[in-house]
C-alpha cells in the first residue's frame, strides 16, 4: 500500500497510466486499496471471531495425569 501510494503515478500500470484526471486516479487507488485490504480484513475478522468462540467455549477437562 505504501509503495502504491508513493508512486505518482504508477506508470507500470496501464490503467493508472491512462487515467484521464485526478478523479479517475483516485478511483483506481480506492479500488486497489479495497481489493488489497478486504482479504486482510476478512482474515482479521475471522481471527477475532475464532478467538471469541475459543474464550466463550467451556474448557475441556484436563487429561488425567499418571499416578505413581
Amino acid at each position, binding site marked *: 500500500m505504501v509503495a502504491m501510494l508513493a508512486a505518482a503515478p504508477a506508470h507500470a500500470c496501464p*490503467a493508472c497510466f491512462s487515467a*484521464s484526471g485526478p*478523479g*479517475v486516479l*483516485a*478511483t*483506481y487507488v*480506492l*479500488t486497489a486499496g*479495497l*481489493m488489497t485490504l*478486504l*482479504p486482510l480484513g*476478512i482474515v482479521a475478522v*475471522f481471527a477475532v*471471531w*475464532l478467538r471469541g*468462540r*475459543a474464550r466463550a*467455549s*467451556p474448557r*475441556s477437562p484436563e487429561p488425567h495425569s499418571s499416578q505413581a
Partner: protein
Amino acid sequence: MARPQELVESGVLAMAVFLATEAMLFAGLISAFLVLRATAPVWPPPGQPRLPVGVTGANTAVLLLSAYTMHRAGAATRGEARTTMLRWLVATAALGAAFLLVQGTEWIALVAHGLRASSGPYGATFYALVGSHGLHVAAAVVTLLALLPRAWRAPSAGQCRRRVEVCRLYWFFVVAVWPVLYVLVYLS
C-alpha cells in the same frame, strides 16, 4: 477416546470460508463499476432510462425485514417450538421471493425502456452487479425452500439448528451486500 469439542461447527466454517470468497467477488464487481463510472464522461449516460429509486428503496426494506425474520428463525432453534421456527423460515422465504419478484418486474420494465446489458457500460455494470445479487437471493430462497421439508419432519426445532445456522449466515450476507449496491448503483 473422546472426540475433541469443535470450536466452530464444520458447516458454519465452510460457509464462512465460502462467504469470504463471495465478498471478494462483490468487491471485484464493485471495483469494476467504480472504475467504469469514473472513466465515463457522463453518468448515467444520456438516453438511458433512470433507475426506479423509490420502489427499490421499499424493496430494500423488504430484504432488511427478511434478515429480522431469519434472525428469529435462528433464535427459535434454541428451545422454541418447531412450528415457531417454521413460521419464521416461511416468512423469510416469502420476503426473499417478494424481493426477487419486484426486482424481476423492474428489470423487465428497464429492458423495455432500452436498458440492456449490451447497451454500454451503464447497462452492463447494472445487470452484472444487481443480477449477481439477484442470483444470490434466488439461491438463498431455494436453499431455504429445500430446508423447509426437513424442518417440517424434524421432531424438534433444535434438531435443525445447524442447518438453520448455515442458512442464516448466507442470508445475512446476501442482505448485508444489498444496501451497499443500492447506494452505489441507485443513489450515487
